[in-house]
């Protein structure tokens, strides 16, 4: 018991130190590495709190995918960074410090003043679990009780992707995104990219499928599948399709469209938006998940890929 407490205290101190270092360090790239490490430590915290669902999401999205996005951004910013070295004035810095301190104080106040025991919907959620047909309460919340939130999440990812695409140069509009690679089709990375994806795809689909009853789900599975696609492309074994391709765009919008169609059909079949008719909850949830999966895989991978940078060869 005391040993576990010592580990927890060490973890808490480490994560605070990592957070402080991520903010304090001057170099953008170092700061990003700090953030990724921070995400991995946070994953351990979620595991210690016995929340494997959140831990998986943090490892896949918070540490992995966000890390990849930030490393790409840092690499792009490096050229401009060398020239800009001016620091904000004392007034700005004081203002920023006061603002941060106020937010921290307000958050601490809220957290420390939570009623004990905290109000919870968990017993109610667990009691109705049977009617959703899924065994994992987290999945039930995401796709039955609060499915509207999940729909909006998927749409946010799509809108972010359109935002990235809109940064494309006029000449390359509708062209292919490109990863910065030093592709050598006989090199070690190509070897790695041939060995890992078969296993990675199985793991990704497994995590997606197991999400119905155990920790896992489409976001985590989609991140793994997207990573496999990016690995193959990064090794120079494949290329991104032009973003103007019809199949690509159809798959991208198919997930939210199916989700919305099933959600609004609920008005007729079950009497409320996003309600499922009795006995059909599980198949409908599965249909939504299967439609969302390609959307998320493509959107997440293309987010990392960035704006289109070249036209497809004719």
């Amino acid at each position, binding site marked *: 018991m005391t040993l576990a407490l010592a580990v927890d205290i060490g973890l808490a101190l480490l994560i605070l130190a990592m957070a402080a270092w991520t903010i304090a360090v001057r170099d953008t790239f170092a700061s990003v590495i700090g953030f990724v490490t921070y995400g991995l430590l946070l994953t351990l915290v979620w595991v210690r709190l016995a929340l494997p669902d959140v831990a998986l999401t943090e490892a896949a999205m918070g540490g992995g995918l966000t890390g990849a996005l930030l490393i790409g951004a840092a690499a792009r910013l490096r050229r401009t960074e060398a020239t800009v070295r001016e620091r904000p004035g004392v007034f700005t810095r004081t203002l920023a410090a006061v603002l941060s301190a106020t937010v921290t104080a307000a958050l601490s106040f809220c957290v420390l003043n939570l009623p004990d025991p905290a109000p919870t919907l968990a017993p109610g959620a667990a009691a109705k679990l049977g009617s959703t047909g899924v065994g994992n309460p987290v999945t039930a919340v995401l796709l039955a009780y609060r499915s509207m939130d999940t729909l909006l999440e998927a749409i946010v990812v799509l809108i972010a992707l359109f935002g990235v695409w809109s940064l494309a140069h006029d000449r390359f509009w509708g062209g292919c995104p490109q990863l910065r690679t030093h592709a050598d089709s006989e090199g*070690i*990375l190509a070897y790695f990219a041939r060995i890992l994806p078969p*296993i990675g795809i199985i793991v990704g689909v497994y995590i997606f499928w197991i999400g119905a009853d155990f920790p896992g789900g489409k976001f985590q599975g989609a991140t793994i599948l997207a990573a496999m696609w990016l690995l193959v492309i990064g090794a120079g074994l494949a290329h991104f399709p032009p973003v103007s391709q019809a199949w690509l765009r159809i798959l991208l919008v198919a997930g939210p469209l199916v989700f919305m169609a099933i959600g609004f059909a609920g008005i007729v079949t079950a009497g409320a938006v996003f309600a499922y008719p009795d006995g059909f909850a599980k198949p409908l949830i599965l249909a939504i998940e299967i439609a969302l999966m390609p959307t998320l895989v493509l959107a997440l991978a293309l987010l990392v890929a960035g704006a289109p940078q070249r036209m497809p060869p004719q």
Partner: protein
Amino acid sequence: MKIALDIFTIFSVMAGAFFFLAGTVGLLRFPDPLTRLHALTKADNLGLGLVVLGLLPQTHWPLDTIKLIAIWLFALLAGATVGQLMACTARRGGGQPK
């Protein structure tokens, strides 16, 4: 038998932890990228290998055991690949001058 396995676990995990410690010291103390990589990959391969080996008697055969071994093999594969890539970049004079 149970005690013997527990003792094996304790010694093996401690040996693994020692390799991680040595690897970290090496990472911090060695003078150039290639030797630092050497220290780091030693820690990953041997340290994690010994930790996994030590934990094997404590797992449920077969699924957990196989999962644990698979984790070690994946770490080996990823570590070897990334180590090679970083070493190549370092030899070409990549990375930022300090």
